[in-house]
């Protein structure tokens, strides 16, 4: 009760601070000096404090199971473990928006603190644009999805959190992902501010690069956590399914990745300024579109919360306003400086430009595959879906030139490189990679020029990046780490795809199922009473192709509130491969539906993603060490 009130009013006061900020900022803009009025910082700090207070109030309401709060009532339950009571705060629409708002303000505060060397007007305009987004979120929150709605009479028990969300990976997945999504808001605001101040130059790029890398890092880790969760909790038994919601997080990721590269060109060579601006604006727009599509219920998926058309329309209007502002500023106010510098065909600039072309191609494929079904439904009232072959067919062939480019690109020089195609080292390594890939494929009885070249080029990138680590001159360490991680990722994904095998069958307790290279024996089933669910654990003894005996114990959880069954896969992870067993129950039957999978190099997919992401972090720490 008390905390809901406190949370609600601190939100309103925080919104008032946004309004107060405008005249203060206006006055400060007239004063010609290079220091922002400390009052502005104080106001932003107070705003941050109030929203944080509001968020903490919501968390406390969840911990206390205060069912007079509608959000708590809808998404919590007294028997839920404390950990999931807390994570339930952002496991729903209202709470997650409040978290977004908190991050928006936190980021602009950090921006103001860390940008003291930048021109004053640029900082103030960034703050202004960020405040437009913040006010939009405030209104959205207070008008359509107030997290502190009061319920009377007070219910004695809540409806409970969707059991599939009661999972450690998913408890931290949303906050990390939001850090990535919302991080792009700073990129958006400061790009617009830089345009208005005619400050689009290499100095700006150098500072903005840090923000790009930060949001890219969090987005990468956030996507990975979601992917790990889908792997074991949804029982899908893989790492990527081209589900619309996955695609929606991939699109800003591709855009940010392109931006990381183009912003380096702007920093070092003062080129590609307009293109960098377009990418900055697009990254944030794509993040917001993601929010719109997921929250409005247009995309039906794991993430669809209770749908409310009003919310969809609000986000749509908000999105349009933001895009209009951005377009207006970009096309009317932006005065591109004449790029006087000479370009040559063989240079780092060109290879980065090519990288961006590939990124945009990947992005458009994902965009078309995700949006086309919605489009067709609206236009022709036909319901369709786009299957995974669409993506694999269009993306994988282009990986080959992309990978080869990734090896050559970083080794070229800026401005002009007399790239020597008859570089013995490079050619020799390429031949070795192709040969190695041919041998690997022959070993497993697979053939085909395409797979040979694909694995070959991934190996090529792998070798080149490994060799580059031993070159004394350690500039671009973060680039090397990230590219190395990417080559490892591609390799593990391809090998995972080739070597994966699965067996699906329906089996009763005490039965044995023989397959080509082994057998599965369903030994027994045990029931356990847990805090808010009943756990059914099956014990399976599996003889593998190499005669090894392993036990796997997949679990079914029958939750009390809401009444729902989830299955927890049992996974034996090893260096080379994962053994994955998931069990499902068909009601009113003695049969259990089981899926047994051998997934090679699964752990390498997660590890290489971490390596890929950590390349970004190294950028910060390495500088400090130097």
């Amino acid at each position: 009760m008390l905390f809901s009130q406190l949370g609600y009013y601190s939100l309103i006061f925080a919104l008032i601070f946004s309004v107060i900020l405008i005249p203060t900022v206006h006055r400060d803009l007239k004063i010609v000096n290079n220091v922002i009025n400390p009052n502005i910082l104080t106001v932003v700090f107070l705003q941050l404090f109030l929203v944080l207070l509001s968020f903490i109030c919501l968390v406390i309401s969840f911990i206390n199971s205060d069912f007079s709060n509608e959000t708590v009532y809808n998404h919590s339950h007294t028997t839920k473990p404390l950990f999931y009571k807390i994570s339930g705060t952002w496991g729903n629409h209202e709470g997650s928006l409040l978290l977004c708002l908190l991050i928006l303000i936190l980021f602009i505060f950090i921006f103001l603190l860390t940008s003291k060397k930048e021109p004053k007007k640029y900082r103030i305009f960034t703050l202004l644009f960020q405040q437009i987004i913040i006010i939009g979120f405030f209104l959205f929150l207070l008008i359509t999805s107030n997290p502190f709605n009061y319920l009377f009479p007070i219910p004695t028990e809540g409806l409970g959190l969707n059991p599939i969300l009661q999972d450690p990976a998913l408890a931290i997945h949303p906050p990390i992902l939001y850090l990535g999504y919302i991080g792009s808001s700073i990129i958006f605001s400061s790009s617009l501010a830089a345009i208005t101040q005619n400050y689009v130059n290499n100095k700006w790029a150098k500072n903005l690069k840090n923000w790009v890398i930060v949001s890219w890092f969090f987005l990468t880790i956030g996507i990975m956590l979601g992917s790990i969760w889908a792997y074991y909790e949804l029982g899908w038994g893989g790492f990527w399914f081209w589900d619309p919601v996955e695609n929606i997080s991939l699109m800003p990721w591709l855009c940010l990745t392109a931006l990381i590269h183009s912003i380096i060109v702007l920093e070092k060579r003062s080129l590609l300024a307009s293109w960098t601006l377009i990418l900055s604006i697009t990254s944030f727009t794509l993040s917001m579109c993601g929010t719109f599509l997921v929250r409005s219920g247009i995309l039906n998926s794991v993430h669809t919360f209770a749908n409310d058309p009003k919310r969809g329309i609000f986000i749509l209007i908000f999105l349009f306003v933001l895009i209009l502002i951005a377009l207006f500023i970009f096309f009317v106010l932006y005065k591109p400086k004449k790029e006087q510098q000479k370009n040559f065909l063989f240079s780092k600039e060109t290879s980065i430009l090519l990288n961006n072309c590939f990124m945009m191609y990947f992005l458009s494929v994902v965009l078309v595959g995700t949006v086309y079904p919605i489009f067709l439904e609206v236009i022709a009232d036909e319901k369709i879906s786009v299957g995974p072959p669409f993506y694999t067919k269009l993306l994988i062939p282009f990986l080959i030139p992309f990978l080869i480019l990734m090896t050559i690109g970083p080794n070229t020089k800026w401005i002009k490189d007399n790239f020597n195609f008859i570089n013995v080292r490079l050619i020799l390594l390429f031949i070795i990679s192709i040969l190695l890939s041919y041998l690997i494929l022959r070993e497993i009885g697979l053939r085909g020029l395409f797979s040979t070249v694909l694995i070959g080029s991934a190996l090529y990138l792998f070798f080149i990046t490994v060799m580059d680590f031993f070159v004394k001159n350690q500039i671009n360490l973060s680039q090397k780490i990230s590219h190395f991680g990417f080559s490892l990722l591609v390799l593990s994904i391809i090998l995972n795809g080739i070597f994966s095998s699965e067996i699906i069958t329906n089996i009763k307790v005490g039965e044995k199922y023989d397959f080509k290279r082994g057998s599965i024996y369903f030994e027994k089933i045990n029931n356990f009473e847990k805090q808010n669910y009943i756990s059914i654990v099956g014990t399976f003894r599996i003889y593998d192709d190499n005669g090894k005996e392993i036990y796997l114990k997949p679990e079914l959880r029958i939750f009390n509130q809401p009444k729902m069954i989830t299955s927890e896969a049992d996974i034996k992870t090893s260096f080379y491969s994962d053994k994955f067993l998931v069990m499902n129950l068909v009601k009113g039957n003695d049969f259990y539906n089981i899926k047994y999978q051998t997934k090679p190099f699964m752990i390498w997919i997660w590890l290489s993603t971490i390596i890929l992401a950590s390349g970004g972090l190294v950028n910060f720490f390495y500088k400090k060490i130097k």
Partner: protein
Amino acid sequence: MYGKKVKLRALFISLLLVSVILSIFLVLKSLEENVIYFQSPTEIRNLSEIDNKKIRIGGMVKDHSILINPDKITFVITDFKNEINVSYSGAVPNLFEEGKGVVAEGFLKDRNFFIADKILAKHDENYMPPEVKEALEGK
């Protein structure tokens, strides 16, 4: 006639244009091949001819229709006007139940028989695929 720079730029732009057009063509063609249409049992009954494209069928699992043996599961999808028999060998989602909504993906054998290779998971007790909801509301 023209300077080297202009020529280079023209070459670059035309190359870019060609690759953009090529990739659009590729994307559209691949889209056409990989689109999966959604149909209700009634729509299938009214089909004039059966082609071997992958489709999705949505409806309710008919009561007392689920039969399981070690290799496969058979059941009946109904939209309360027409029915279709489905044979499926694969992993079933947890909320696959008689009297609940379901979406099956696979190939038609004939107008009465469907071989599914995927049953789509629902993640929420109350959630019904929009396709099913509409098919049921249209009855």
